[in-house]
């Protein structure tokens, strides 16, 4: 069975030649949740954007392949690529405040997309939308469908976005820190909701997060990212039982413990980072040579 998403050797550079993704390889099997964990600026979001074809114009992919259900995204014509990505993927964004169009009501925003992507009739799309709102436990779908985004709370908006992401039955969802912008109390509910819908629909998820606690709860596989490089990749259970890479261990040691709220926050061990920096510099040098 071919992977739902297969990224091989993906590298991206900024206009100044700096590498932001360093030969990233990762695969997401159908129905599997793969967490992508790392610090801010590690390139987690960049990978998600690369898959979805919405990289900022300044970032250039210089090598590597991305296969979405066996189809090579790099080989497709732009229009065919857009259609494929639109039909097979969806995004659960980080910030529910800006991810809905403020001047359009929720209902048309959700149904338009189904009509457009799947060629459904308006009536069928409407029924589907209501069903999904029910699945994300929105009790008053009639009111929500008629609302403008600013009339809903952050948690409600994130529910709407989750419903919208699952509505078109995509094979792969990129969840880009979907709980970061929410209250701690709401975070847990949203996370449970995503996990429940994921199981029910059998959707593969690339789950971008900086929170190891979230990783442990939701994912089966993990890739640990540092400076655009996958430093460790493992089954979630195995990773937490026995982290192999020094950086993973340092990252885990730096996770705050709620059992001791007065302990000061620990930064990631400097010696580990220095070692990693040297490793990356050497790798970059080696990478540049054959490319001139």
């Amino acid at each position, binding site marked *: 069975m071919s992977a739902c998403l297969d990224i091989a050797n993906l590298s991206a550079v900024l206009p100044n030649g700096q590498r932001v993704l360093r030969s990233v390889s990762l695969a997401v099997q159908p129905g599997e949740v793969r967490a992508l964990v790392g610090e801010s600026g590690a390139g987690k979001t960049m990978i998600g954007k690369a898959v*979805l*074809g*919405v990289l900022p*114009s300044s970032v250039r992919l210089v090598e590597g392949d991305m296969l979405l259900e066996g189809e090579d995204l790099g080989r497709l014509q732009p229009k065919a690529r*857009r*259609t494929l*990505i*639109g*039909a097979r*993927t*969806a*995004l659960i*964004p*980080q*910030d529910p405040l*800006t*991810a*809905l*169009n*403020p*001047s*359009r009501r929720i209902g048309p925003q959700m149904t338009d*997309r189904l009509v*457009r*992507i799947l060629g459904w009739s308006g009536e069928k799309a409407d029924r589907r939308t209501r069903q999904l709102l029910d699945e994300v436990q929105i009790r008053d779908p009639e009111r929500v469908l008629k609302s*403008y985004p*600013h009339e809903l709370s952050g948690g409600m908006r994130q529910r709407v976005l989750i419903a919208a992401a699952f509505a078109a039955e995509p094979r792969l969802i990129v969840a880009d820190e979907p709980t970061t912008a929410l209250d701690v109390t709401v975070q847990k509910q949203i996370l449970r909701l995503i996990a429940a819908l994921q199981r029910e629909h059998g959707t593969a998820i690339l789950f971008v997060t900086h929170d190891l606690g979230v990783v442990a709860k939701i994912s089966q596989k993990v890739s640990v990212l540092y400076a655009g490089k996958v430093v460790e990749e493992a089954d979630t259970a195995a990773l937490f039982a026995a982290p192999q890479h020094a950086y993973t261990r340092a990252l885990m040691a730096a996770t705050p413990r709620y059992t001791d709220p007065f302990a000061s926050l620990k930064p990631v061990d400097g010696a580990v980072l220095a070692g990693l920096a040297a490793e990356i510099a050497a790798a970059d040098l080696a990478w540049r040579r054959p490319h001139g």
Partner: protein
Amino acid sequence: MDEARTSRRGPSPRLWLAGGWLLLALLAAIFAPLVAPQDPLAQDLMLERLPPFWLDGAEPGYWLGTDSLGRDLLSRLIFGGRIAFIVAFAAAIAACLVGSTLGLIAGYFGGWADRIISRVVDIWMAFPPVLFAILLVAVLGTGLSSVILAIAIIDWTRFCRVIRAEAMGQSRMDYVENARIAGYGRIGIMLREVLPNVVPSIVALLSLEMGIAVIVEAILSFVNLSISTDDPTWGSIIAEGRLSIHQAWWVLVFPLITLILTVLSFSQFGEALKARFDPVLR
């Protein structure tokens, strides 16, 4: 829910006052031949410089007095309103169409389109607007259409700048990216996702621009470069009133008040409409 919202916000006096004046002036202009008490062009030297109705020596039927040729001031203001409104609507809409389209393209697409459009706007705005207008009318020839054209040619940059900035801000929002992922084309996203969010600003600017067009038209008639010397316009009445300020102050003061009220109403009406149109401000 809509009722609750309205009552919480209360009626907007700004909207009603400004809109009321504009409606009154517009209706008077449209039905000028019916509502004007006198023929605006009829001269009568026996009736020259009659004062407005509450002063001694006023004649019934000449409510705001007459000018130095004995023409009725109120009728001239009402007929002048016709040209003012025609210029306001036509010039503002033309400037809006050109400026908003270019602004939307520059703001949404960015890159080369933005660089070219923005440089043109910069160069355009280096010209002093009034001088530019006088120059344009001198080249195009006087007449209603060249006044409208001149105002549109000068003022499209106002729309372009504002709409570009707004479209740029909206384009960075996640909902635009989401539409990209869903497979919508760029032009489709520009029109369906971005445009509705800049419409409130377009409406406000359009109304503001109508006021500005009224001023520019008045300036052009003031320097005798507008329509023709026969048809009354607010600017030409002001120009005549200036000459007889010491003998008949009303010939200058009433058209000035009309002009100021109209321009102010346009800008206030636009602001109030923007608040109504914007789902977030609402």
